[in-house]
C-alpha cells in the first residue's frame, strides 16, 4: 500500500487544493470536486438547498426553469447507471439540456487525449461537465483547464462527492442530525471513493466514523482520515447508529484480498441473523449496486431499516442542488 492511501489527498495527478474560502454561508464554488475541501457550512448549505429541491420532485410538473438554456454534458469514462441517470434527470428537472457522452466507441478509443475530448465538446457551447474517470484527480485537472463548471461523478479511488452528500443528507433526514452519531462504513474501504467522500463529510459534521472490513481492504492507516478502524463487524454493530454497506466489487473477489466469498459473507455480510446484534433503529445504507447475498442479505436490503431507495430519491435533490449552486457561482466572475 502506498503512503498516500487514506485520503489519496496527494495521489491524484494535478490535484491541487483550492484555497480556503472565507467564512460564508453562501456557495461560491464553480466546481464540485470533492468533500475534502468543503467546510461544514458549505455542506449544510448544499443540504438546505437540496431540501428545497425535494419538493419539485413531488409535483405533477417536475420541472423548474432555473437552468433553462444551459447544457450539461455527462462525460463518463467508466460504467454507471444510477449516477448517470440521476444527473440526467436532475439536469432535466432544472430545464437544462443534456448531452450523453460515452467513452466507449468515441474518439477516445482513437487515441484522443482527455483534454482534447473535453475542449471539442466545450467548443459546442456547454456549461457543465459531469465527469467520471478511472484516474483520481481527472476532474480537478479539467477544472483548471476548461471554462465549464466541473462536477466530479467519481474519480478513481479518490472521491464521489455527490454520493457522499446523498448518504449524509439521508442520514440527517432520517436521524435528525449528524453530530454525535456513530457511522460504520463496511467493506472495501481502501478502494472506495464513496467511503472517502463519506468519511470527509461525516467527520466535518461531527459524526464518529468507524471503517470495518478485512485487513486487506481496510488498512490501519485509514485512521489518518480521522476515523476508527475495525476488522470485527460483530464488535462494531451494537454501537452503530448507521451502517453503510459498500459493494464488494466482484472483480476483487477473484484476487487475493480475501479467501472466498463465503468467508467474506460469514465475517462481514449484513445478514438478518447479524442484524439482531444491531440497534433496533439502526439505519442500513448502501450506495448501490447491491450484491444481494454478499455484503447485504436480500431481506435486510428490503427490510424496515433499509434506506437504499431513499438514497436514490435523495440523489436527485442533491444533484439538482449541486448543479444549481455551481451555476449561481459562475455569476461571480461575470
Amino acid at each position: 500500500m502506498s503512503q498516500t492511501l487514506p485520503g489519496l489527498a496527494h495521489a491524484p495527478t494535478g490535484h491541487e487544493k483550492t484555497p480556503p474560502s472565507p467564512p460564508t454561508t453562501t456557495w461560491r464554488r464553480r466546481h464540485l470536486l470533492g468533500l475534502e475541501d468543503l467546510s461544514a457550512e458549505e455542506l449544510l448549505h448544499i443540504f438546505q438547498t437540496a431540501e428545497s429541491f425535494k419538493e419539485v420532485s413531488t409535483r405533477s410538473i417536475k420541472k423548474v426553469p432555473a437552468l433553462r438554456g444551459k447544457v450539461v454534458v455527462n462525460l463518463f469514462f467508466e460504467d454507471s447507471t444510477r449516477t448517470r441517470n440521476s444527473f440526467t434527470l436532475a439536469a432535466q428537472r432544472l430545464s437544462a439540456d443534456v448531452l450523453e457522452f460515452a467513452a466507449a466507441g468515441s474518439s477516445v478509443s482513437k487515441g484522443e487525449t482527455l483534454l482534447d475530448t473535453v475542449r471539442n465538446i466545450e467548443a459546442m457551447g456547454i456549461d457543465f461537465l459531469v465527469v467520471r474517470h478511472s484516474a483520481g484527480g481527472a476532474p480537478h485537472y479539467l477544472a483548471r483547464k476548461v471554462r465549464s463548471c466541473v462536477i466530479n461523478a467519481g474519480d478513481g479511488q479518490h472521491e464521489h462527492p455527490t454520493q457522499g452528500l446523498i448518504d449524509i443528507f439521508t442520514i440527517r433526514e432520517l436521524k435528525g442530525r449528524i453530530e454525535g452519531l456513530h457511522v460504520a462504513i463496511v467493506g472495501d474501504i481502501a478502494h472506495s471513493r464513496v467511503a472517502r467522500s463519506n468519511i470527509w463529510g461525516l467527520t466535518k459534521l461531527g459524526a464518529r466514523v468507524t471503517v470495518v472490513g478485512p485487513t486487506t481492504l481496510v488498512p490501519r492507516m485509514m485512521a489518518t482520515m480521522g476515523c476508527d478502524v475495525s476488522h470485527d463487524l460483530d464488535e462494531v454493530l451494537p454501537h452503530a447508529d448507521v451502517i453503510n454497506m459498500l459493494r464488494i466489487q466482484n472483480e476483487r473477489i477473484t484476487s487475493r484480498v480475501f479467501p472466498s466469498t463465503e468467508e467474506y459473507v460469514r465475517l462481514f455480510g449484513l445478514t438478518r441473523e447479524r442484524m439482531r446484534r444491531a440497534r433496533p433503529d439502526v439505519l442500513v445504507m448502501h450506495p448501490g449496486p447491491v450484491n444481494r447475498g454478499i455484503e447485504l442479505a436480500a431481506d435486510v436490503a428490503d427490510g424496515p431499516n433499509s434506506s437504499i431507495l431513499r438514497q436514490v430519491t435523495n440523489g436527485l435533490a442533491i444533484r439538482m442542488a449541486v448543479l444549481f449552486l455551481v451555476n449561481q457561482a459562475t455569476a461571480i466572475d461575470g
Partner: protein
Amino acid sequence: MSTTQVLLDAAGIRRTIDRLAADIARSVPAGASLGVIGIRSRGDVLAARLIEALKRHGHANVAHGALDITLYRDDLAHKGPDAILKKTEIDFDIEDRYIILVDDVLYTGRSVRAALNALADLGRAIAVRLAVLVDRPGRELPIQADFVGIRVDDVKETVNVLLRETDGQDRVDLS
C-alpha cells in the same frame, strides 16, 4: 439625508390586514375553496395573518401555502450566490381552488410574474388574485393588484416593510 416616515405602525398593519381580509372575503365565489399563498418570506408571514383575519370574516378553513420564487426569477443569473433557495410549502392541491397570492410590496411586478409562473406549474387554479400590503409605483410589467392595503404615490420614495416574524417588529416605513 433622507428622512424616514412611518407609514403604518403595528396597529395600522393590523387594521389594514383586517380590511384586506374583509375585501377578499366578499370576493370569494360562493362554494369555492380558498387558498392563501404568500411569496417568501414576508408575503408568507402576511398570508398567515390574512388567514387569521379571514376567520373573523366567515372563512374558517382556508389553506395556507408558502411559495419560493427563486427558481423562476428573471434576474437569477445576476443574483449569483445571493440567490438562496427556500422551500415551497403548498401541501394542498391548487386545482379547483380560488387562490389569493400575497406579497408585502408590489413594485416592478417581476416577483409576481415569477410567482404566477411557479403557480402555473403546480396546477390550474379557478382564479388567482393578488393581495399586497403596499402598492408603490414603478411597474415594469403589466401586473396590478386586486387587493391593496395602502398605496404610495411618490415615485422616489422607497418602502420598507418590517414584520415581527421576520424583522422583530411591525412597521412600514417610507424613506
